[in-house]
C-alpha cells in the first residue's frame, strides 16, 4: 500500500514492515507537529488556549512576548490584572456553546487588540477557547488620527462655509448700498433740477415774448440768467454722473450697440455750431458699423464731449472724426486745428475740475474726467496729444474700446484710476 500525504514533510511512505510503518507514522506526526508549532511560533498574532475554568492552557511565543508567560493563570488576572472575569467582554460562555466571537480589548497602557475567539477541543478533549490576539494599536491610532483629521477638516469646512456666507452677505450688502446710492442720486438729481427747470421755463417764456413784449435790454439780462441756469443744470448733471458711473451704473446699461450710429448722433448735435463757425467737419466711419458691447447713451456722451471741445476750441480750420475698426478694439480719434493744449497740461486734462490755461468756454470742468471714467468702465483708454502728430497743430483726442464683451463689461468704475493717459511730447 502506498500512502501519500500530500505536502507532508515526511515524504511518501515507500513500503516496509510494521516497525517501519510505526516509525514512519511517528516521523510523520512529529513533522506535522513541528510544522504546526513553527506556524504558531512565527505567528505575529498571539494565540492562547483558555480552558473552561478560564485557566490559560497555552500561549504561543508571540502571546508570551506581548503579555508575559501566563500559562496556568486565570486569563482575566494575567491579561488584564482583574480578580473577576472581564465583565461584559468575556466571550467564553458563548464560545463554549459553539460560537465564534470577535471582540476588542483596550488595555490601560493604550494597547488595543482585536480578538477572535473560537471553540477548540484541547488535546485532552476538554472544550476550550482558542483566542487569537491581533495587536491593532497602530491601526487604532491611525483610525483616531484619521477621525481627528476628518473632524478638523469638517471644522475647517464649516468655518470656510461661514466665511463664504459672510462674504456673500457683504457682497449683497454692498450691492444694496450701490442701489441705494443710485436711487439717492437720482432723487437728488430730480430735486435739484426740477426748480431750476421751472425757473428756466419761466425765463424762456418771458424772453420769447410769450408773456408780453420784451425790450432788448430785458432780453439781454434774461439771456444772461438762462445761460447761468444752463451752466448750473449741466454742473448738476456732471457732478452726479461721477458717483453714478463709479457705482457701476454703466454696466447695467450695457448692450450690443452699433457704433457708427453713436458717432452720427453726436456729429448731428454739433453740426450746427460747426457750420456757424465755418469749420469743416469730416467724419470717417467704417463701411460696416462696428458692433460693440457698451452703454449707448454714455458713449454718445463721450463723443459729444470730445466733439464739443473740438468745436469750442477751434476758431478756424477743420475737425476730423475717424473711427478705425481693428481686430480686437475700436479706435476713435477726434482731430482739430484749434488752439491746442500746452504740454504740461496734457496729463491733467482728464482730472476732475481741471481748467486749462486756454479754457474759455463755460463748461463744468468735468467733461473729460467723466469721459475718461466712461471709457475706462468699458475697458478702454483715452488720451490726448497736442499738437496733433498728423497735422502738426491743434490737438488730437483718442480713445479705444475693446470689442470683446468680456473685456469691458466686468470692469467696474474707474475709481482707483489715476493713471491718466497723455502724450509726453
Amino acid at each position, binding site marked *: 500500500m502506498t500512502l501519500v500525504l500530500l505536502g507532508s514533510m515526511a515524504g511518501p511512505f515507500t513500503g516496509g514492515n510494521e516497525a517501519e510503518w510505526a516509525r514512519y507514522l511517528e516521523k510523520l506526526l512529529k513533522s506535522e507537529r513541528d510544522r504546526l508549532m513553527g506556524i504558531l511560533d512565527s505567528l505575529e498574532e498571539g494565540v492562547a488556549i483558555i480552558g473552561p475554568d478560564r485557566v490559560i492552557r497555552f500561549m504561543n511565543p508571540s502571546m508570551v512576548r506581548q503579555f508575559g508567560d501566563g500559562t496556568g493563570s486565570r486569563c482575566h488576572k494575567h491579561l488584564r490584572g482583574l480578580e473577576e472575569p472581564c465583565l461584559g467582554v468575556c466571550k467564553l460562555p458563548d464560545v463554549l456553546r459553539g460560537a465564534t466571537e470577535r471582540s476588542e480589548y483596550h488595555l490601560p497602557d493604550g494597547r488595543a487588540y482585536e480578538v477572535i475567539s473560537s471553540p477548540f477541543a484541547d488535546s485532552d478533549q476538554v472544550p476550550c477557547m482558542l483566542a487569537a490576539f491581533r495587536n491593532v494599536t497602530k491601526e487604532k491610532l491611525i483610525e483616531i488620527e484619521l477621525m481627528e483629521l476628518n473632524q478638523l477638516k469638517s471644522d475647517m469646512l464649516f468655518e470656510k462655509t461661514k466665511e463664504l456666507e459672510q462674504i456673500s452677505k457683504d457682497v449683497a450688502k454692498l450691492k444694496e448700498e450701490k442701489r441705494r446710492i443710485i436711487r439717492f442720486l437720482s432723487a437728488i*438729481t*430730480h430735486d435739484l433740477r426740477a426748480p*431750476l427747470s421751472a425757473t428756466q*421755463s419761466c425765463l424762456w*417764456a418771458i424772453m420769447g415774448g410769450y408773456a408780453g413784449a420784451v425790450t432788448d435790454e430785458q432780453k439781454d439780462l434774461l439771456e444772461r440768467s438762462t445761460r447761468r441756469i444752463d451752466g448750473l443744470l449741466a454742473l448738476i448733471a456732471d457732478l452726479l454722473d461721477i458717483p453714478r458711473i463709479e457705482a457701476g*451704473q454703466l454696466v*447695467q446699461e450695457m448692450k450690443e450697440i452699433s457704433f457708427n450710429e453713436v458717432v452720427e448722433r453726436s456729429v448731428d448735435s454739433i453740426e450746427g455750431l460747426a457750420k456757424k463757425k465755418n469749420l469743416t467737419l469730416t467724419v470717417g466711419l467704417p463701411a460696416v458699423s462696428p458692433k460693440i458691447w457698451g452703454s449707448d447713451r454714455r458713449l454718445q456722451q463721450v463723443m459729444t464731449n470730445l466733439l464739443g471741445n473740438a468745436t469750442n476750441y477751434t476758431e478756424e480750420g477743420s475737425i476730423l472724426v475717424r473711427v478705425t475698426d481693428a481686430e480686437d478694439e475700436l479706435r476713435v480719434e477726434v482731430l482739430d486745428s484749434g488752439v491746442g493744449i500746452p504740454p504740461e497740461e496734457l496729463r491733467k486734462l482728464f482730472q476732475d475740475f481741471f481748467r486749462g490755461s486756454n479754457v474759455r468756454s463755460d463748461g463744468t470742468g468735468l467733461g473729460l474726467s467723466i469721459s475718461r471714467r466712461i471709457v475706462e468702465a468699458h475697458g478702454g483708454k483715452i488720451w490726448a496729444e497736442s499738437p496733433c502728430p498728423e497735422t502738426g497743430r491743434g490737438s488730437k483726442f483718442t480713445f479705444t474700446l475693446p470689442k470683446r464683451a468680456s473685456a469691458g463689461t466686468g470692469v467696474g468704475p474707474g475709481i482707483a484710476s489715476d493713471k491718466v493717459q497723455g502724450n509726453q511730447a
Partner: protein
Amino acid sequence: MSKPVRILLIDDDVDFVKATMKVLQSKPYEVIAAHDGKEGLEKARSEKPDLVLLDILMPKIDGFGVADQFKKDQSLSKIPILALTSFSDSYGQPFAFEVTDFIQKPISPKDLLAKVEKHLERLDSGQ
C-alpha cells in the same frame, strides 16, 4: 373748419405748468392743466385731448401709472403722450413703458412747440 387742438398738460409743478401754458397758448391750442396723475386721467376721459404732455414724477398716480391707464383704455390708447422728465438720464431703466416721445426738462419754447407740432402733424396724416 376743424375744432381747435386740445392739449392736456399733466404736471405737479405749478410754475412749470404756468410757463408752459403761456408758450402753448401762443398757438391756436386749447390747453388744459392737471396737477397730478389722478386729475390728469379724469380730465383725459372728460376732455378727450388730442395730445398729452405728461410729467413722470407726480403724487397720487405717477407718469408711468397714467401712461399705463392710457394704454388700457380704448378711448385713450391712441392719444400721443409726450413724457416730461427732469432726470438727466433714464436712471436705471424705468422708462421701458410706452410713450410716444420724451421731453427733457427744461425745454426751450421753440423746441417744445416744434415737438408738439410734429406729433400733431403725424396724427393728422397718420390716422
